[in-house]
């Protein structure tokens, strides 16, 4: 039969396209990485950078290595983690508006991380772990409060806003109105931060990639998934836990960055479609790229002053969120 000839070529071409898109984005991100290392208040040339890193000591390159390099690496890791977190939350809750910042997970994580940092400084290096606990607690609270027989997409946002506000209020009450002093965005990130983050980044990203195929099944009705032998509730729980872990650990190191986790998955779906096997790696790369781009732009655009990446993300993300609300779009219309 005609219809059967070349079966399999369509999926393969899709995989190929997805792979090509990922490779291209990886290349762009690498380019941005180098650019971010080179640019800033301490100016170094490509040659200096290369020789300083690999050949001989150069005090200016050493300063870049100690100050700028870890910041750039943290931005890449945290960006990837936040984007994947948003993607997984959107899949688990079947809610295109889900974002760990908006629904209050990041707020809970940041609050517990700050709490531990302030009262148990000896536990400083387990900050991401405590943030994870805080994140899980707020997630369970939000889930519980938003549950009315089923999860209402808008209700979960409203509850999340309330939880976020409460956490922000508590932080302000404890640490002063400014913001909490222990978490200050991407500025002054050190190699210690990279070490702290990388364990969670590696675990979380690996888990995300392994779970990616199963995330596709969450786009079906729960009944349909169960009919295929998939325990949909368990799968949703695991996917949510990975999302909360990724967001909490990133938040423990760089504080609350809103909207990245919302925007990156939507952009990624535009580029590579809704198949999580391709969407997940693409989304990880896109998150890394966007956060590093925002941070680098923020460093350069008004030098010597800096615009925090989180501020840039809010400026771009706010209107984006409004557009999504207006469209009321859903994943997988029936």
């Amino acid at each position: 039969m005609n219809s059967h000839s070349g079966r399999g070529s369509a999926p393969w071409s899709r995989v190929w396209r997805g792979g090509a898109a990922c490779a291209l984005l990886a290349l762009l991100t690498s380019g941005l990485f180098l650019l971010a290392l080179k640019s800033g208040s301490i100016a170094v040339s490509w040659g200096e950078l290369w020789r300083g890193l690999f050949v001989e000591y150069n005090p200016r390159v050493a300063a870049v290595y100690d100050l700028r390099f870890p910041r750039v690496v943290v931005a890449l890791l945290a960006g990837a983690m936040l984007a994947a977190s948003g993607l997984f939350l959107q899949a688990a809750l079947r809610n295109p508006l889900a974002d760990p910042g908006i629904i209050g997970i990041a707020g809970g994580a940041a609050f517990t991380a700050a709490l531990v940092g302030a009262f148990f400084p000896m536990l400083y290096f387990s900050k991401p772990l405590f943030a994870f606990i805080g994140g899980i607690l707020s997630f369970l609270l939000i889930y519980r409060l938003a549950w009315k027989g089923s999860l209402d997409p808008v209700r979960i946002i409203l509850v999340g806003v309330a939880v976020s506000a409460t956490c922000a209020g508590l932080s302000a009450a404890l640490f002063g109105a400014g913001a909490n002093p222990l978490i200050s965005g991407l500025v002054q990130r050190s190699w210690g931060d990279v070490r702290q983050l990388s364990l969670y980044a590696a675990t979380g990203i690996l888990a995300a990639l392994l779970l990616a195929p199963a995330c596709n099944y969450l786009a079906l009705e729960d009944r349909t998934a169960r009919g295929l032998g998939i325990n949909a509730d368990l799968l949703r729980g695991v996917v949510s836990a990975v999302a909360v872990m990724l967001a909490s650990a990133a938040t423990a190191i760089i504080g609350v960055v809103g909207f990245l986790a919302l925007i990156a998955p939507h952009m990624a779906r535009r580029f590579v479609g809704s198949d999580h096997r391709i969407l997940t790696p693409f989304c990880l790369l896109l998150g890394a790229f966007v956060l590093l781009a925002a941070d680098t732009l923020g460093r350069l655009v008004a030098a010597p002053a800096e615009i925090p990446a989180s501020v840039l993300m809010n400026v771009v993300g706010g209107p984006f969120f409004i557009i999504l609300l207006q469209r009321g779009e859903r994943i997988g219309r029936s």
Partner: protein
Amino acid sequence: MAGHKLTVENLSFSYAGAAPVLRNVSFTLRPGGVTTLLGANACGKTTLLLLMSKNLKPNGGRVLLDGRDIATIRLKDFARQAAVVHQKNTAPDDLSVERLVAYGRIPYSSLFRGRKAEDGERVAWAMEATGIADIARQTMGALSGGQRQRAFIAMALAQDTKLLFLDEPTTFLDMRYQVETLRLIRELNVKHGLTILMVLHDINQALMYSDEVIGLKDGMVLAQGPPAAVVTEDAILALYGVRLPVRGEGGRMWVLPV
């Protein structure tokens, strides 16, 4: 015909804090036959189907598959023995028909086992049997209502089960697709030996396409048997609360639902 004797035993169910939906329901599905559940809205048809497919747990009684309580059967093993086409189906718009149908092979997959040739063959067969082989590459978003329904039936067929449950398979379809879907269901039963249980709203469709009908009223079985014996003017009055003329000619029966 082993492998698909389904018995419902004294099944009772109520949603938390609400009045009972099912009360002491018992019946045995005719192996190798097409059975249709009839009843007014909210009489418990869909709930019954959910209980029979491990989507809900009964408050009392049990469902037996070849003598074994389905509560003790793992979800994955159950998915190799019974497939369900639900009334409401969701899939991403950019998912290809072929990929959706291939989801039907999930019950046979495991982390350590790749795709087998058998999976591909079964998927191809399911698409052939439902007449969607020529649209295998299209995406779900591009399909008509009838094609969508066929794709989900094909997914259930790919599960390679002896039992097939369908919840109102014709409800959202226009006349032509309704007839096509019902003919397909009959064909699956006759040609491929599937034991089928479906929920229908249309009595005439039930009369035409079933070997047996079960009338459900207020969560209880009112009647079970061959359609000609069960579908009478009195039974319709009892089931739906309205008196309708039942006519017959040349061995065929119909109800005038006006």
